[in-house]
């Protein structure tokens, strides 16, 4: 069953068509990759799903409900969170607080409750911190709890983005080039993490990535965009051998083995 469905999605910037008439479905609890050359429209595709951009035309359905026209924070509330290709952390806040912000819409306490010391608000805060800590442990950042997010090295920042995104307990998690800037070893760890998240968090994952080793290893299904159009889709084996994909994207030498 598709949890997320996209119909005829088009986005134009002035004269430039960044994505054109894309339709696709994402299976629940799958790991789906979106790949394609630079400027193919992958990030734009994520931006439309998360309501950063409004599609020029087309529809996006989560469990059959349209998301088009919502505000970004509403999309998050509906259960879709993401990471960003250009890291966007709250640099001046601690790592822990970054994760707590990720939990924002799950916390029910009202500020009036905070002021009046309502016990339920207090308890919720305590529990949230504990949970945030566990998430940080999970992504391997527990030693940086009190560090300012902006001071972390690149790879750690990427993991913190993931931590913040899963803190919202999403149904669908969008990862935009999570392995960028990581060395093979770190990428390996990331691969394991993504795998584990799917089962442990019961979440559907869509990722954009240029690291083909990771993509081929991890994905259940792959969509390939080029010049804003969907040029191929299929399981990794099919994509790896798809001529158009090799030509436009992979390059001959890059057909790596698993």
């Amino acid at each position, binding site marked *: 069953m598709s949890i997320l469905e996209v119909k005829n999605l088009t986005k134009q910037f002035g004269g430039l068509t960044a994505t054109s008439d894309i339709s696709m479905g994402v299976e629940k609890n799958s790991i789906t990759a979106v790949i394609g050359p*630079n400027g193919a429209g992958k990030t734009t595709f994520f931006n439309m799903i998360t309501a950063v951009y409004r599609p020029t035309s087309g529809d996006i359905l989560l469990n059959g409900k349209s998301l088009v026209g919502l505000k970004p924070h509403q999309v998050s509330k509906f259960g879709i969170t993401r990471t960003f*290709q250009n890291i966007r952390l709250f640099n001046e806040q601690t790592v822990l607080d970054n994760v707590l912000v990720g939990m924002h819409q799950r916390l029910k306490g009202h500020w009036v409750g905070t002021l009046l010391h309502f016990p339920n608000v207090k308890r919720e805060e305590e529990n949230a911190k504990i949970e945030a800590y566990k998430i940080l442990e999970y992504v391997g950042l527990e030693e940086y709890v009190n560090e300012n997010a902006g001071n*972390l090295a690149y*790879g750690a920042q990427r993991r913190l983005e993931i931590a913040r995104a899963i803190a919202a307990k999403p149904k669908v998690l969008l990862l935009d080039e999570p392995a960028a*800037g990581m060395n093979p*070893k770190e990428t390996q760890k990331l691969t394991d993490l993504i795998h584990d998240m799917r089962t442990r968090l019961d979440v559907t994952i869509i990722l954009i990535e240029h690291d083909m080793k990771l993509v081929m290893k991890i994905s259940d299904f792959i969509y390939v965009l080029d010049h804003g159009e969907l040029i191929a889709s299929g399981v990794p084996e099919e994509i790896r051998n798809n001529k158009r994909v090799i030509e*436009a994207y992979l390059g001959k030498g*890059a057909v790596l083995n698993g």
Partner: protein
Amino acid sequence: MANENGTHFLELKQVESFYGKIQALNGIDLYINEGEIVTLIGSNGAGKSTTLKSISGQVQPKTGTILFDGTDITKNAPHQTALSGIAQVPEGRRIFPRLTVRENLQIGAFSVKDKKVVSERMERVFGYFPRLKERLEQKGGTMSGGEQQMLAIGRALMMKPKLLMLDEPSMGLAPIIVEQIFDIVKEMNKEGMTILLVEQNAFQALQIANRGYVIQTGSIVLEGKGSELMTNEQVREAYLA
């Protein structure tokens, strides 16, 4: 390996750099000879970018010296370093977001007075990255991640530097472009440009490099020929997976 006077093209001696109170480099020793490709590998936060920034002057080393082409550039401001012939493709691309692609390239050749030279160089860059030619008037900031990376490299090439430093040039690029980038680096090198390459993609970097350094928590822990390092057990274990 050293030139006639026994000095190297670029040489770092015991360089220590700080961010506020945080020490990022604990005494780096490193040299590059003219015409070499040297690569610097290491895990996240090891200090690769900081090393480049120390050379370019974005970070002022607290102690140690940096010699380039026989002159001490340790205390140089970034623009002076650039004028002396060192270009850097910074981490995260750092495109001027509200300048057009054309202007971004032009500014790379800021110190060049001759307009003709500028347009010649620009044509060369277009030869490497045709996408840039298609988007001459697009604002740099709206280009896709990979397009920006191309622009950043192109911009540095506009300077026609003696030493080109690339900080993770393959990050965010499609595999096919990554290959291209490495090809371009090789080609530039053939034409006489000396190259210092920081890469996560250690395998490919070491393949094209004459020599490589491995940096760990702010210190050089290994150095050697590219091919040697590639086969080094320790390196394979740590970075090549």
